[in-house]
């Protein structure tokens, strides 16, 4: 009797749960509480979810402003033939012309897609690539490792130049250690070197690269472990440092021209404000900072705005309705240039789905939506 019981149990279990064909990772659609407006510009916003290292779960979502949809995980369904999908750890997403570029750090590639459809146009292999910016038909990509060095413990980083038509690497230049964000101003590329692989001997410089010759012409000392680097409309550079997470805190630096006749940039201000991420919109620099408090075993998080003209802190609470309590780890920040909406992503514990929050220009929450793992980077898709 018992035997029969077990027999039935086993058969039932097997029938119930056999292996099926492994399906292409499906796209999900979710309605957002927004008004449908077919004239809105920007049309939408792409969200790049990093995915935890080794999980191969980098993914792209799209906020459809016109049809009020959140489109989750669209890459695999639009490109079903790509083996092992988008890849491992997305680190930057940008649009240039009609193309969408996703920098996939641990897959060592820049994925190039059609900006409207998300369909793949090609890929460019760049080892340990980090961030991408554009200028005159060329893409410039920072990469943690440049040419193989003789001393394996002193791996200098590089900036790769990619032709956006042929999608070929057309040049590269060695910069500092583990370069992160970069910005193009005039004929120069400014690259924030972190030196993150060299703890505790962090890099502390910005590399200045002459763009046409692809030659490093200067290294500006700023602060240890640099990360973000953005330009404002007055020709200044805003640079954040991560600090050493111990005694030296994160800081925000301002660089400007030495004098009117010089192209040389120098540090003019060091703001006593920790900064994890920033986004400049007009005169306002939105930022947040996350700092770990050893005593309380909690993250101390602030969300602030700085006036880039006066370099003064306008507010340290750009979320005004108290809903910032719902954010565990802010990980991405973007401002809608049209209506001033603020987007903040929450990476949660890095190994579960994150959330994209939208706040209006007054800091009141409009909506929140589940994203992929570690939503972090956003870019707007405009009508033209």
């Amino acid at each position, binding site marked *: 009797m018992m035997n029969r019981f077990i027999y039935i149990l086993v058969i039932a279990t097997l029938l119930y749960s056999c*292996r099926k064909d*492994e*399906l292409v990772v499906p796209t999900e659609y979710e309605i957002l509480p927004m008004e449908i407006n077919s004239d809105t510009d920007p049309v939408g916003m792409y969200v790049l979810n990093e995915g935890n290292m080794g999980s*191969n779960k980098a993914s792209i979502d799209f906020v459809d402003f016109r049809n009020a949809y959140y489109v989750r995980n669209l890459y695999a369904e639009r490109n079903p033939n790509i083996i092992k999908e988008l890849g491992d750890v997305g680190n930057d997403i940008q649009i240039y012309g009609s193309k969408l570029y996703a920098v996939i750090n641990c897959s060592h590639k820049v994925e190039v897609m059609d900006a409207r459809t998300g369909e793949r146009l090609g890929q460019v292999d760049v080892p340990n690539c980090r961030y991408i910016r554009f200028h005159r038909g060329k893409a410039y990509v920072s990469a943690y490792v440049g040419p193989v060095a003789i001393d394996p413990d002193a791996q200098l980083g590089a900036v790769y130049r990619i032709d956006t038509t042929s999608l070929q690497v057309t040049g590269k230049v060695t910069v500092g250690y583990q370069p992160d964000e970069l910005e193009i101003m005039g004929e120069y590329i400014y690259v924030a070197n972190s030196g993150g692989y060299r703890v505790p001997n962090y890099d502390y410089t910005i590399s200045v690269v002459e763009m046409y010759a692809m030659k490093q012409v200067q290294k500006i000392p700023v602060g240890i472990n640099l990360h973000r680097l953005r330009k404002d409309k007055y020709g200044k550079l805003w640079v954040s440092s991560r600090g050493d997470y111990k005694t030296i805190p994160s800081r925000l630096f301002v660089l400007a021209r030495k004098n009117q006749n010089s192209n040389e940039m120098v540090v003019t201000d060091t703001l006593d404000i920790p900064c994890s991420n920033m986004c400049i919109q007009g005169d306002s620099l939105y930022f947040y900072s996350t700092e770990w408090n050893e005593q309380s075993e909690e993250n101390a998080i602030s969300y602030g705005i700085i006036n880039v003209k006066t370099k003064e802190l306008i507010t340290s609470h750009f979320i005004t309705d108290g809903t910032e309590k719902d954010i565990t780890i802010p990980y991405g920040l973007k401002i809608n240039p049209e209506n001033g909406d603020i987007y903040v992503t929450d990476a949660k514990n890095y190994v579960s789905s994150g959330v994209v929050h939208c706040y209006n220009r007054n800091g009141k929450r409009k909506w929140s939506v589940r994203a992929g793992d570690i939503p972090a980077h956003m870019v707007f898709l405009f009508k033209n």
Partner: protein
Amino acid sequence: MFYVKHLGIVVLLLAVTNVFSQSRLDSVQRLNEIVVIAKRYKEIIPAQTLKGAELEQLNSFSVADAIRFFSGVQIKDYGGVGGIKTVNIRSMGTNHMGVFYNGIQLGNAQNGQIDLGKFSLENVEEISLYNGQKSEIFQSAKEFGSAGSIYLTTKRPRFEKGKDTNVKASMRTGSFGLFNPSVLYEYKISEKINTTFNVEWINANGKYKFRYRRVTPSGELAYDTTATRQNGDIDAVRMEGSLNGYLESGMWKVHVYHYASERGIPGAIVNNVWRRGERLWDNNSFVQGVYQQDLTPNFSSKVNVKYAADVTHYINNDDKLIHVDNIYKQKEAYFSWANKYALRRNWDVSMAYDFQWNGLSEFVDVSRVTHWLSAATAFTVADQLKIQASILETLVNEEDRQRDDVPNKQVFTPAVFMSYQPFKKHEIVFRTFYKKSFRMPTFNDLYYTDMGNAFLRPEYAEQYNIGVLYDTNPQKQWFESFHFGVDAYYNYVKDKIVAYPKGQQFRWTMLNLGEVDIRGVDLTTMATFLLPKDLKLTGKLQYTYQEAIDITNHADTYYRHQIPYIPWHSGSAIAMLAWRNWSMNYSFIYVGERYNQQENIRYNYTQPWYTSDVSFSKQMKLNSLLLKFSAEINNLLSQDYDVILNYPMPKRNYRFLVSIEI
């Protein structure tokens, strides 16, 4: 220990015709040869055991492969010959599992995990798995400490009459470029002392084909690619020697172990990355000894000592990634003194004290001293009700350090085991246990650069188990024996040590945050049939149902979701057919659907996998030589599956063995 005494006498009588003269104690240890008597209601909670011929026939290369056939166990297998394989029992996490090698725990103070893929079955005679703890009170204090325990027992020498030397040489080869010779040498120095020596070399390129295939919902092929696993090679040498002595009413044993390996870490297969540059060198050595003596008829004493030194060298050569070159050195010194006293014929008490020192150097130089003190008692009423209770005190003295002053810890953990056999004639035994146990934060948890948290507390696990066991040996002509056991359990894990995000950019810290609620059923059954024409058929079935849910925080998106990599359903089936000196084995393993991350959403869904393995073997006598041949086919149906996401497992693969015994 009334039973043991009586059985001892029985065994002694039987052993006279057998092998060499032994002390009473040793003959008790050799009980397994007289199966029927020995099995009868001896242990309160019997172990799941694989041993001898059965173990040899299962298509298993390492200890981890064999453990897959136990119920209530989950294996994390990163694939291939050199891939890491860790085990956790009843969803409580690898660090709650104690692995004992000839009675003494294998340690890894750095990360608390034992890679069971590293232990080959070549020199292992028996593997036993205990939920809770071994149902015996005469044991070291540490043995009371784990939530579950695996005991690995190496081959014990047996000498036929008139023989003082046994030599066995074997050679394995097959898929993955495997080249695996080994030699076992056993020598009887005198009637009371013998020695064994065993050397094994494992060399494999670790290459195997794997396949990823996806289809669109409409059934069109999206992609289908087959590639070769790279950087999974291994080159390992294991050397072991032992000296065993049998005394009038005691025994002693000294065991030396050395393992040295170099292997590649194949790594995750992700888009655009098909090979990686991580290499690992392991050097594990230990020497351990045990001395056990019955000092009076009522009082027995046992001393264990061990010294272990491990060196791990890890490098990452990938020129696209950060270059890493680290050497970790661990040392461990251990002493244990256990005593048992029989107050009455049916009432035993025991006490044990263990001491251990652990040191680690590389990213940090740290050490820790741990003391364990256990008291236990075992009581039998009318040979029907058996009760065991134990309490363990653990004292951890963390090193005084300037930067992160880690607090010392003191923990008391109790356990109660009971079993009841209501009818003397029928072997139906009801059993139940409660146990509280914990795991210490490892050196990595406490000190690892940036991530470590000096203020971590121990992580607790509480287990409640109730079950019944039925055994029958009808001795009918064709129906030899039948065994059935079922257990239901509830485990509660609190203060689970988890990585928590800190600040920005993938920075973590360790916190006592997690809470897990685990409910499950384990079912085991076995039947042996004697069929006509000398055919003997043994069938075994194991099934496990588990619900292990995260109950840490209502606000989490994964609140009350099944924790990662725990299937709801899993099981195995084994059929062994023996005919004279031929034998055939078929085994089937099933692991049901599960999720690879905390949230049970479709993006984290992992398909069930199930593999069929077959083996054939034949033994031959050639003069004084005993020859054995066997052939194994694993993953017969060539299923393409991942146990761990992005770590593809091999398709169909083969293994062949030839061995000669002199």
